[in-house]
């Protein structure tokens, strides 16, 4: 086995995987320091819609209603008695759920969470089924269509392909 192949051998891949896992573990478990009050206000503001704006969050909007809600959030954060969710809950109570930028996972609103997952699962399942069907088809005798396609390609020679050639 030459040196290049030895370097790329499976123990080296395992080592690389181990390094990646260790680095990810360090990076995700260590404390990144306390947020400033301003950053906590920003984080909450990003989850609340400005009630008088065109779909903007309180964080983005410069409208007076957004400013008023930001001030309320700032007061709540400064008081330090409520969690982020409680602060948002209070605002939602005052303005109704239409100020929530994250739809709830109940009732009709849950569809917005369920449908993408369902579509994703169906797409992956469809892809897997297609690959399975193609695998089963392999080894079949080429049809006339297959032969015609190859003839066409060979005769035309119009495929302009600049893909990798090693």
């Amino acid at each position, binding site marked *: 086995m030459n040196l290049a*192949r030895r*370097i*790329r051998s499976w123990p*080296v*891949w395992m080592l*690389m995987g181990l*390094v*990646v896992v260790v680095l*990810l573990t*360090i*990076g*995700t478990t260590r404390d*990144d320091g306390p947020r*400033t009050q*301003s*950053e906590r206000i920003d984080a909450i503001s*990003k989850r609340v819609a400005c009630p008088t*704006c*065109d*779909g903007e*969050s309180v*964080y983005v909007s*410069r409208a007076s209603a957004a400013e008023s809600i930001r001030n309320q959030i700032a007061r709540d954060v400064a008081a330090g008695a409520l969690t982020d969710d409680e602060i948002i809950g209070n605002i939602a109570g005052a303005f109704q*759920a*239409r*100020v*929530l*930028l*994250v*739809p709830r996972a109940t009732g*009709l609103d849950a*569809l*917005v969470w369920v449908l*993408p997952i369902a*579509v994703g699962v169906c*797409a*992956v399942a*469809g*892809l897997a089924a*297609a*690959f399975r069907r*193609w695998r089963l*088809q*392999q080894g079949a005798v080429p*049809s006339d*269509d*297959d032969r015609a*396609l190859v003839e*066409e*390609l*060979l005769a035309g020679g*119009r*495929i*302009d*392909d*600049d*893909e*990798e*050639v*090693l």
Partner: protein
Amino acid sequence: MLGVTGVAGPLGRAALLVGLVGAVFGLVSAVTGTRQSDPKVLRLVPRFAWLTGIASLGAFVCMEWAMITRDFSLAYVQKVGSWSTPALYNFTAVWSALEGSILLWLMVLTFLTVGIAVKYRAKLDDPMVGWALATMFFVGVFFFVLTLGPANPFAAGPAGVLDGPGPNPLLQNHVLVVFHPPILYLGYVGFTVPFAFAIGALVTGRVGEGWLLETRRWALMSWGFLTFGIILGSWWSYEVLGWGGVWAWDPVENASFIPWLTGTAYIHSVLVQERRGMLRVWNLSLLVSTFSLTILGTFLTRSGVLNSVHAFSDGQIGPFLLTFFAVIVLASVVLIGWRGDLLRSPGTIDSPLSREGAFLANNVLFGVFAFVVLLGTVFPLIVEALQDRQLVVGEPFFDRLGVPVGLTLLFLMCVAPVLPWRKASGELLSQRLFWPAWGGTLALLVSVVVGATGIAPLLTFFLGGFAGGAALRQLALATRRQGLRGLVGRANGGMVVHIGVILIAVALAASNSFTRSQELTLKLDTPIEWGGHTFELVGFSREEDDRQTRISARVEVDGTERAPAVTKYLKMGNNIGTPSVLTTLTKDIYVTLEPPVKMDSGTAKIKVFVKPMIVWIWVGGAMMAVGTVLAMFPGRRRKPTDPVSAPVPEAAAP
């Protein structure tokens, strides 16, 4: 001057009418000439194309003239014109609201029709070209009707109006208003061309690969313009809106992003059809989706059904756009169904571990991503229709669902460039992925060393390094073999685009996850330290004219004077913040002046954002644009009979 005001309206309406007649005759002559194979009739088609192009240009010039001369006899000028608007923003005011933006759309569309008629003037007797031109004229007829009906920019306004409010304040304080909308429209409208050829292929039954070859550069060019337009829009948003972000998942932003997603899927999967003759229905569906989504997006954001910070609401245009969308989708589905037998692909994909397998997975992800964005955009409409209550779906929703999809796409960008066509062996993958994977590991190590935290950003940095390594490997091999020519062609230009995408992904992950922000109340000549930077208020300045009052706080940031401002547009009454952005290679210091500003108090409240790596979003965008241009040049030709892209000699070696 007074002698020439008032003529723009009648002239503009006349130009649009002439254009409509030209488009109708163009459509009729393209259809009849193609059906009867009559060269005399077909020779008329380019002339009608020119007529529509000249007519739409004439209408556009009339609109500009009306704006320049402040012709307040027109309702549109009353809406967006003003004597106090500076010349540049007065010029761009033409596309600052619904009617003018549709006029701009129409002009781009007719110019593209002229472009096709000129490019294929020697092939007009080819039925596919004939039907493609007929489709372009059909779309043109629709937009001429719009501009003469519900989106008429030349409609007369109430008498006696002598001045107007001018364009939206956000559209008159940054030069990008000149570039962003036209470039975005070039992309948006540009997808009409491949769509038209797809229709031509379906009608003629020539659903092989010929139409793809004819349109691949059009598709790539449209995609490039759309990409560049979206990036410019993000830059504009960052520089103008004052909230420190580049993307807010606003419905109008989404309306441009959804066709971009399906268009991106198409420019990948089309390679599979060209190489393997497969995915014909899928590619046609993607093109139809991309084009129809541009119409649906226009409906959603221009009809008033959805609120957006930059939507132009108008109650009349909605039914027209929705009907046109339905016609496009229905006609396309019927045509695809009609040609179902011809569209069946004879080949199979041998293995998921192949270039075509990766493209297919990429398409599934882009499709799911497009669905997520579309669903999030229209879901408030669904809830309102079913339960008569208002709901907003915002950034947190899109981030939660978009991040996993984005990370998976990044993973595919690591693997796909090294995969050969048909099938890859484990040995081959081990050989080709080894150094790119170590590149990712190194990127992760650096990220952890500099203090990055959180699973999503760390995975982005790892996969970004990995994918960057894979792209650089491809470019290194190509340039070693072909010199600078190894940078052109779809595969190599595509790798430059990939590097641009990676830079954007990494920069977005860094800026979204590690931005620090703080509100500071500054007193005159009293420096404050925060986040390793010094901020000192050294004074105020006030500028006033008949359009605006602008108050700037002169703030020294680490000794460099910056001037965040608040501008009050007198006719609108809005306060618009203008941030000051100090850009370096590693971070931006973004400072906004928070209203109310009381100059005599000697204090100013500012908000400071320290945003890492933002500049790399714009660098990445530029690389995507450059890569797209490189991809449009013809690359190295190869024999179509080559079984795989790599003969894998090492794998076979003992």
